[in-house]
């Protein structure tokens, strides 16, 4: 059954068709949200919200659009709203990691712990990028998504996407370098 057929069946209230869409796109939606919010439970809750919104706005879905693009867009919007709403929480994490000196503990910690710390720093750095750089970079890190798809989701040209991702990488390295430099000084 084609996606369009599935969508028209959902519009008729067919739950089996809706289940098919949830099953097909759950991994994509879940990992897109995770890419933005960096927390398993939050990502799971957001993915659930994404499918609920999809169901509630099914009548506004244009026939010519791709289901994946639509779901990516809802996922990105939900994630960004979530981050905005929980800014305080993220800022506190950010500050904590910024002010915590590299203790002996961190030096002796296993690789997982080091990676966990690095992930926190990376996430804080991504979070401080401009909105479009953050969206482009985060989407780019999702498995299997092309520049063309990112351009479609963000409603910009492919060359803009390339430039956004390039600038995001340069800025991230710069931010991380300055952050780690403070720890060396």
């Amino acid at each position, binding site marked *: 059954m084609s996606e369009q057929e599935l969508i028209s069946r959902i519009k008729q209230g067919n739950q089996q068709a809706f289940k098919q869409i949830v099953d097909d796109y759950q991994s994509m939606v879940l990992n897109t949200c995770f890419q933005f919010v960096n927390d398993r439970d939050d990502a799971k809750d957001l993915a659930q919200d994404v499918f609920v919104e999809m169901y509630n706005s099914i009548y506004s879905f244009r026939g010519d659009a791709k289901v994946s693009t639509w779901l990516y867009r809802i996922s990105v919007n939900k994630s960004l709203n979530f981050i905005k709403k929980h800014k305080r929480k993220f800022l506190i994490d950010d500050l904590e990691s910024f002010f915590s000196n590299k203790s002996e503990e961190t030096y002796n910690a296993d690789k997982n712990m080091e990676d966990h710390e690095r992930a926190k720093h*990376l996430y804080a750095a991504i979070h401080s990028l401009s909105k479009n750089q953050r969206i482009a*970079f985060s989407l780019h890190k999702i498995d299997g998504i092309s520049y063309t798809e990112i351009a479609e989701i963000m409603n910009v040209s492919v060359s803009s996407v390339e430039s956004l991702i390039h600038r995001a990488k340069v800025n991230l*390295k710069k931010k991380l370098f300055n952050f*780690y430099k403070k720890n060396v000084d």
Partner: protein
Amino acid sequence: MICKDVHKKYDLFQNDQLSKHEMESMEQHISACADCKWLIDEVNKTMDIANNKELLSVDPFMFTRVQQQIINESTKTVRLWGKFLQPIAASVVIIIGLTIGIGLGSKFYNDSLKSSSESREEINTFSSEEVYFEAIDYSSSLEAFLLAEE
């Protein structure tokens, strides 16, 4: 090259914007300086985290959870309807009803005032005529009676 130069030129370095000569002297310093090496390694290792991000596995109960949330939200809407909107709607209906009622009532009142006075006039006219005719009848019959008496 010293550490400070590496710090200053790192941006150009990571962006491949250094001259060949500067690039070489920077790489030379980094390979010899533990601090600078640690810094640059740490940045690269952190950037690698983004590339090797684990994938979350799907939740087998996702569809059930989604369905449940849709049901909960619709009952919430119903409950919201019952709790706030229904009394508001009811008050609005009552207010509209009262307004229409008062409007119509005063119209009817005026109309009925008009019509009752009209009908009163009619009655008066009619009854006076009737009285008149009765009077005539009476008087004529009295006349006839008196005449008959006579």
